[in-house]
């Protein structure tokens, strides 16, 4: 997929920005607060209906304005035109339309324009909390499969409802299985679907991750990623574990935890407690990897994501690199560019100063520079 036009209204310090894009590599430079990252945020909103930063929709709206909107026009690998518009009025539901129709739900458009984002915020994937890794995998799977989004949304809803019932039961001291059982059954059913999809995802994803790490780190050590689902022993997590097998395990876990759940007043098992273990030469990367290795792991995991999505969607994802080169040495920067070139992916890069990147570019590269200043973006010749 390649973006040809981007229209931003009222996102952060952009009041109205129109950008024509005709290059593969697009480098937006400017100091902090000039509005360069908001361009990437806008593309993320067009792809996921929300920013990739952990912020509320309202806080993305330009100061004192009542709405934001983003329009992206793009062309698929096969040359089919695609456009998407996301409009958010403060306090109202987002209005989402695409080439496919109007009044769409977020889950109907996520994945239509696949996007892979690398930002310093994602460092937590390799050494942060389980939650950070779950979010990482959920984002990929949501772009790869609409059924996964549907299962995940439903699972989260059931979990919230069931927790409410358990909490009430704890407070009132009255526990009615007749009321809670249907929620437990649905929790187990949807939870098993989520776990089954995560397990089969890691089976496909791990080899890609190992390959990318070998390219990025030059084969000095071997990286791996494993799924660590809550309440499922390693020996039971076979390669082709089925939904029915997972349901059976969950039923057993539920029976064992039932009394404790009543005492605590909340759900104590299920995929909301899953983790993924990232390792280097069989040791946990979280504790053992050096800073440089963490950077290589993050680059590899993101390019594995790129390859996975490209295969699943049959569409080349757009790459967003938010201020990543300041932290990468020359060798890793060169690797990243090699990966971008080899995959002919359209890429948007933000940097504070353009000179360093210019040195990495080839005369054969198809690139454009844009300068960002006070919410205005301008194409410049450098």
């Amino acid at each position, binding site marked *: 997929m390649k973006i040809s036009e981007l229209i931003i209204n009222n996102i952060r310090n952009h009041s109205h920005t129109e950008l024509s894009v005709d290059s593969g590599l697009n480098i937006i430079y400017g100091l902090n607060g000039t509005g360069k990252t908001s361009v990437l945020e806008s593309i993320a909103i067009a792809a996921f209906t929300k920013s990739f930063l952990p912020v509320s929709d309202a806080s993305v709206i330009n100061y004192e304005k009542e709405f934001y909107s983003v329009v992206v026009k793009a062309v698929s690998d096969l040359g089919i035109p695609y456009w998407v518009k996301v409009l958010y009025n403060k306090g109202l539901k987002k209005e989402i339309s695409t080439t496919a129709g109007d009044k769409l739900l977020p*889950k109907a458009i996520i994945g239509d324009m696949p996007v892979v984002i690398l930002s310093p915020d994602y460092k937590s994937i390799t050494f942060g909390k389980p939650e950070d890794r779950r979010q990482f995998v959920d984002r990929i799977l949501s772009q790869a499969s609409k059924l996964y989004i549907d299962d995940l949304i439903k699972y989260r*809803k*059931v979990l919230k409802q069931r927790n409410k019932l358990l909490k009430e039961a704890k407070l009132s001291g009255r526990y009615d299985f*007749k009321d809670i*059982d249907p929620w437990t059954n*649905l929790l187990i059913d*949807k939870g098993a679907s989520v776990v089954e999809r995560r397990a089969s995802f890691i089976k496909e994803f791990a080899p890609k991750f190992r390959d990318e790490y070998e390219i990025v780190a030059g084969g000095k050590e071997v990286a791996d990623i494993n799924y660590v689902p809550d309440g499922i022993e390693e020996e039971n997590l076979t390669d082709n574990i089925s939904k029915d097998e997972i349901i059976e395990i969950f039923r057993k876990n539920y029976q064992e935890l039932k009394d404790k759940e009543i005492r605590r007043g909340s759900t104590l098992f299920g995929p909301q407690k899953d983790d993924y273990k990232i390792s280097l030469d069989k040791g946990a990367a979280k504790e053992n990897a050096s800073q440089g290795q963490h950077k290589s792991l993050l680059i590899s995991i993101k390019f594995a994501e790129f390859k996975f999505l490209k295969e699943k969607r049959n569409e080349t994802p757009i790459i967003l690199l938010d201020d990543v080169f300041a932290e990468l040495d020359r060798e890793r920067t060169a690797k990243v560019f090699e990966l971008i070139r080899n995959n002919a992916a359209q890429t948007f890069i933000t940097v504070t100063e353009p000179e360093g990147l210019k040195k990495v570019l080839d005369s054969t590269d198809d690139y454009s520079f844009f300068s960002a200043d006070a919410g205005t973006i301008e194409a410049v010749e450098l």
Partner: protein
Amino acid sequence: MLYTSESMEKTVDMFASLPTIGRKTAQRLTFFLLRQDESYIDKFSESLQELKSNVKFCSNCYNYTETDPCPICASKKRNTSIICVVEEPNDVNAIEKTGEYFSQYHVLHGSLNPLDGIGPGDLKIAELIQRLDGVEEIILALNPSVEGEVTMQYLVKMIRPLDIKITRIARGLPIGSDLEFADEATISRAIEGRIEI
């Protein structure tokens, strides 16, 4: 926002309290009413008054009606041994529009939803169980949301011991879509292709 009139502010507040109506729309509607003549306003408030005093629940199916029992329950042409259970009165309208369903309904007025404080006692479930004498089939036509799904499970557990055939409408409906928004052909097919559970 500050209004020059307390009455306007009150009207805007009332409109804004309606579902799907935001503050801006509420203002627009208020200004619209102000521009209309007296007779329009009379008719408007009259219809609101009548709405509450004339419309009540049918004591059999709990749909809204002005006569009790409602025209559907009172009809001699309808098969009384099949009951289609729905969440909202709107769902009855959606199924009636297909013109291909000739049995009875039961309106639950919602689905189980702990977060909204809605439990079995807040729905017309006991009322459903009470009218099952002589009923041969219950068609569950609830929304495909998790709340609809759980309500369905709950009902199945209650009805199962009574030895009545229980079916659910087919999943021909697009993922996540409510009965209310599906077209007539889709609803017809969903009822026709119902499966026993």
